């Protein structure tokens, strides 16, 4: 792929980047509260986001820059199997519809800001609260680092080398997140999502025309996989269970992350969330079409140094420079929104479930906002250091494990919304077995997300997250049956 600078592309890129930087700082004046000095204002935007703001924010936060780069890249390299992102991002919404309005209500009624707040309120267990909080922070850090990988792919395509553009972009991001809180990514998400929609709609409607139509695109991909001897545009029967469990496990994990939950908690009402469960699938349609860019890469006979270059290379090869610059800006800005919300979500966890729980229980709302602002800076610098100093593969492996880990917080966070049967020790035991058992399986399999399960003559390849979640729930039920409950200790 060509690397000589295209000045039109760079000019368009810088224009949009400057625009969102201004928006990020202006955002603190948007629906201005009497004071930004509380976690409800800084970390949740005042819990007043209506249907459209929530739609742009959660959409911008969940369909990240890394998704835009990585999904087509996986489809490019393995074919149909990489398409599991589609059933994943469809099934997530019936789950959101059934569960998240209840969770929002509990958080709103009690002033909870994080998942661990909800768990502590329900079970009065500092241990279970800490387990959920630590899992959230640890699972989020590599996710932020991955956003930088998405941004790096776009910046590299413009012809910039080295790490300084990433560092500069992240410093700017860190400063306006510090001053504006969740309002900054919420406002920027409008620009980012509209840009991504324009880039993707242009790509999926114009590129196939240049390559002979969708039938030719699928045909070219089929030929390429046959020539390569691996991958296919249909699944092998042996991949069925892997595909289904990856889709299901990812869908259940998606809204356990601090950044997605922050988007939920910031909504104005339960109805806002239900409406969004109906409207957010528009992004899934876009993601499904975007995934096919992987096959278009084969049809365009791209020669790539890395699979992650397939999307930038397509834009660069098939569109004029100014539009490629626009698309790369969309991807880079697409990294800023989730990175900001992730750092805010992690900072909220640190403030509520570590600082307030252990260091200063008497901290006032202004003090909480102050601690969270500093924590958000630390989180972003940490992610930046990971990307600059550690191999990329390290972030990818951690992100894979992060999905498995965050999924293990589901029973503690969600079951209590529907039943009062489970106790804290049982859920804690389940969490520990799921998290450490799942990590052990993944580790011994050479950091692969899939594990070959054999029961008698039956064997299947299953997503480790689902195996661990089943073990988690089974252990929680067993411990609950064995350990006597102390009724009087339960929180209301």
């Amino acid at each position, binding site marked *: 792929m060509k690397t000589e600078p295209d000045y039109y592309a760079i000019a368009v890129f810088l224009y949009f980047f400057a625009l969102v930087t201004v928006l990020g700082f202006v955002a603190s004046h948007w629906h201005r509260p009497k004071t930004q000095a509380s976690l409800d204002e800084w970390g949740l935007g005042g819990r007043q986001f209506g249907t459209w703001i929530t739609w742009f924010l959660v959409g911008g936060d969940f369909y990240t820059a890394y998704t835009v780069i990585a999904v087509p890249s996986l489809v490019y390299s393995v074919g149909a199997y990489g398409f599991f992102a589609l059933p994943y991002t469809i099934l997530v919404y*019936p789950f959101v519809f059934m569960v998240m309005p209840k969770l929002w209500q509990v958080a709103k009624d009690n002033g909870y800001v994080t998942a661990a707040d909800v768990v502590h309120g329900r079970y009065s267990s500092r241990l279970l609260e800490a387990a959920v909080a630590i899992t959230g922070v640890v699972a989020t850090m590599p996710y932020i680092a991955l956003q930088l990988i998405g941004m790096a792919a776009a910046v590299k395509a413009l012809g910039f080398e080295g790490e300084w553009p990433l560092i500069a972009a992240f410093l700017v991001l860190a400063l306006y997140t510090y001053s504006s809180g969740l309002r900054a990514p919420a406002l920027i998400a409008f620009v980012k999502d509209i840009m991504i929609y324009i880039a993707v709609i242009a790509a999926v409607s114009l590129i196939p025309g240049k390559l002979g139509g969708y039938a030719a695109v699928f045909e070219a991909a089929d030929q390429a996989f046959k020539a390569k001897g691996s991958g296919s545009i*249909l699944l092998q029967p042996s991949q069925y269970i892997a595909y*289904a469990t990856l*889709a299901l496990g990812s869908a259940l994990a998606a809204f356990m992350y601090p950044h997605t939950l922050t988007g939920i908690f910031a909504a104005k009402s339960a*109805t806002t969330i239900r409406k969004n*469960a109906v409207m957010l*699938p528009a992004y899934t349609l876009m993601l*499904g079409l975007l995934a096919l860019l992987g096959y278009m890469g084969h049809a365009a006979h791209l020669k790539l140094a890395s699979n992650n270059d397939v999307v930038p290379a397509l834009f660069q090869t098939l569109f004029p420079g100014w539009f490629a610059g626009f698309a790369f800006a969309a991807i880079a800005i697409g990294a800023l929104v989730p990175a900001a919300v992730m750092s805010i979500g992690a900072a909220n966890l640190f403030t509520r479930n570590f600082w307030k729980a252990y260091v200063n229980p008497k901290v006032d709302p202004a003090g909480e906002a102050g601690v969270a602002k500093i924590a958000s800076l630390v989180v972003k610098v940490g992610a930046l250091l990971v990307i600059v100093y550690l191999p990329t593969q390290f972030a990818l492996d951690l992100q894979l494990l992060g999905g498995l880990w965050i999924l293990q917080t589901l029973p503690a966070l969600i079951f209590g919304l529907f039943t009062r049967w489970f106790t804290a020790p049982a859920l804690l035991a389940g969490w520990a077995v799921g998290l450490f058992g799942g990590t052990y399986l993944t580790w011994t399999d050479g950091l692969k997300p899939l594990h070959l399960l054999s029961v008698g003559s039956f064997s299947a390849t299953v997503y480790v997250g689902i195996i661990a979640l089943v073990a988690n729930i089974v252990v929680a039920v067993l411990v609950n049956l064995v350990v006597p409950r102390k009724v009087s200790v339960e929180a209301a």
Partner: protein
Amino acid sequence: MGRHFLWLLVLPFIGLLWLPFYNFHDPVLLGFPFFYWYQLAWVPVTAFLTWIAYRTYSHED
């Protein structure tokens, strides 16, 4: 309206997680093999089912 409409939300799980339903090449629609357009078709279908479920709730805003 009763809350039994919520059971509609089980349908996407059945339709998408049972791969023998749709891991085929034919019939092709607008150049898309069945595997692809079937899954893409579930996006509006799921949104529609969720909308039906949404209508069973009272709206506070």
